[in-house]
């Protein structure tokens, strides 16, 4: 016979009250788990969407005379002369302090060419980095992957009269149109796109880069700081951080998070109050029993321990079940709140938080009732004596 046997036997005997207590706390914890899971999923969803949205740092060469039209660069026909980046130096981007936050680095070379008697902007890209970044690019045909492939923007295709399979001579080299870029409503509609190194050759800019787009989105990334770090590494570059869109979306998430925490705090407060009131009632109900314990030699600490063990058990069970129910609710609710999304995996941290929350709230709410019980005068408690 140990004190915990008394606690567990009491909980077993007062099944109704025990279930009531666990349910009260469970509702609170389940609410928190549900809200936090939904918030976390919303945050991740927005993060993914923004990742798909593309780059959020653009690095262009510093030039006072340069007017921009694509990603910050306009090429003013034959007068286009700017100091470009050296391709070999781009590795320095991976050496900045927040290098781990850098996702995709997409370098490009830009320059004017004449095709079928018309001037057009030619852009060389690295398909491996560019295409994952531009998820909104949809091609008719096969996007450029070989050195002789070309993709033509929809407006440029019309203006130049180009179609898939057409051959184009550029810089004395024969290229084949393998894809037409479907209208994007942006600058890409009027350009011709090819493989980076092949285009560098056509433009006679071997190893040169006109523009670098960097995808560095992640929740809480110090985008502005990263831009400054990049600018330090590339003194001749103008680095722009496109953080407005991300900030406004993250602000919405933060507002929802604050709202979630508020609701969760309220529910948890009510749950704790329920535990407090029920525990107080339980202590009053058990006055005689506590009197017996004290009369046969139990110390105040022993009586407190009996009640605290009950509280720990109730809190643990409520935390465990609350976590399960909360995740279940989140699983049901998420597809409605975030269309096309579903609950991803089990969050161990949230599980631990739910357990700790259950136990600590239950203990906190039971502290005063336990103290009150331990202070009961055995003669008053027993009355019979």
């Amino acid at each position: 016979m140990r004190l915990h046997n008394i606690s567990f036997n009491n909980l077993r005997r007062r099944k109704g009250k025990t279930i009531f207590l666990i349910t009260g706390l469970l509702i609170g914890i389940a609410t928190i788990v549900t809200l936090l899971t939904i918030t976390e999923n919303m945050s991740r969803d927005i993060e993914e969407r923004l990742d798909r949205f593309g780059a959020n740092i653009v690095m262009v060469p510093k030039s006072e005379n340069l007017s921009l039209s694509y990603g910050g660069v306009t090429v003013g026909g034959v007068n286009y002369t700017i100091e470009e980046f050296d391709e070999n130096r781009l590795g320095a981007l991976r050496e900045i302090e927040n290098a781990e936050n850098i996702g995709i680095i997409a370098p490009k070379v830009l320059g004017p060419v004449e095709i079928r008697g018309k001037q057009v902007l030619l852009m060389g890209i690295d398909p491996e980095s560019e295409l994952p970044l531009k998820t909104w690019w949809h091609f008719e045909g096969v996007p450029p992957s070989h050195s002789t492939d070309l993709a033509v923007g929809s407006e440029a295709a019309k203006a130049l009269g180009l179609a898939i399979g057409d051959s184009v001579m550029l810089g004395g080299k024969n290229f084949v149109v393998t894809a037409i870029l479907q209208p994007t409503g942006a600058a890409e509609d009027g350009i011709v796109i090819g493989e980076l190194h092949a285009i560098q050759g056509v433009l006679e800019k071997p190893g040169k880069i006109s523009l670098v787009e960097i995808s560095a989105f992640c929740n809480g990334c110090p985008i502005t700081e990263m831009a400054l770090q990049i600018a330090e590494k590339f003194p001749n570059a103008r680095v722009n951080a496109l953080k407005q869109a991300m900030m406004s979306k993250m602000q919405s998430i933060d507002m929802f998070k604050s709202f979630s925490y508020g609701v969760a705090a309220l529910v948890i407060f009510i749950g704790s109050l329920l535990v407090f009131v029920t525990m107080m009632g339980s202590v009053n109900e058990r006055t005689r029993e506590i009197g017996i314990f004290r009369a046969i030699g139990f110390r105040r600490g022993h009586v407190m321990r009996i009640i605290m063990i009950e509280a720990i058990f109730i809190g643990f069970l409520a935390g465990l079940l609350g976590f399960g129910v909360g995740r279940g609710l989140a699983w049901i609710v998420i597809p409605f709140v975030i269309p096309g999304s579903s609950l991803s995996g089990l969050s161990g941290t949230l599980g631990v938080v739910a357990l700790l929350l259950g136990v600590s709230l239950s203990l906190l709410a039971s502290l005063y009732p336990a103290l009150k019980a331990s202070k009961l005068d055995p003669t008053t408690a027993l009355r019979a004596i």
Partner: protein
Amino acid sequence: MNKAAEHLIKISNIAKEYSSGDATVSAIRHMDFCIDDGEFVSIMGQSGSGKSTLLSVMGGLNHPTRGVVYLDTMDVYALSNEQRADFRSEYIGFIFQSYQLIPFLTVLENVKLPLAITKFKEKLQDEMALSVLDQVGLVDKAHRLPDQLSGGEQERVAIARAIVNKPPILLADEPTGNLDTKTTMDIMNTLQSLNEEGLTIIMVTHNPDLCRFSGRTIHVRDGQCHDDA
């Protein structure tokens, strides 16, 4: 226990008053007596005479307004609350009115209750509890709940619980108050046997017939010892 003292228990100039609003009620006006080791003492008196208060004062449960309670040479009320709890655990076995068993614990668990705060291992606790249950003839009902027992059986469980950790003193408050004559006799015989084995018993009763089981009877009236024989 320290045997240097002349008596096992010494009640010296005890008084106990309760406040009731503006009025003060004297449950014990003045009491002075001693009890020796191995005695079986009945404290007899009418309802409200102060006998139950006296028992709780002797058991370290109820601080007297005045006077001293000695166990051997130890002043019981000079101890702190927690020390007095330890004192009750070590020296006193209580039999309360109406059995006062814990309804959600089995007979065996009820008997083991005083052992829950000791360092005895579970196996030894079981042996000790079964041994006293055997003594009161209830081994076969060890796993029943109190409400599955008769009044007499519940009283015997209460006795077993009171003696399981082998205290030197047993305080019994109306141990047969709710029992029929035959069961009362059984219980009294059990208490007498325990006394013959060396246990000091102090029993509160209002039934004069039970005094013949004890070697000494203290009559209490209006909070004072009226007769000690």
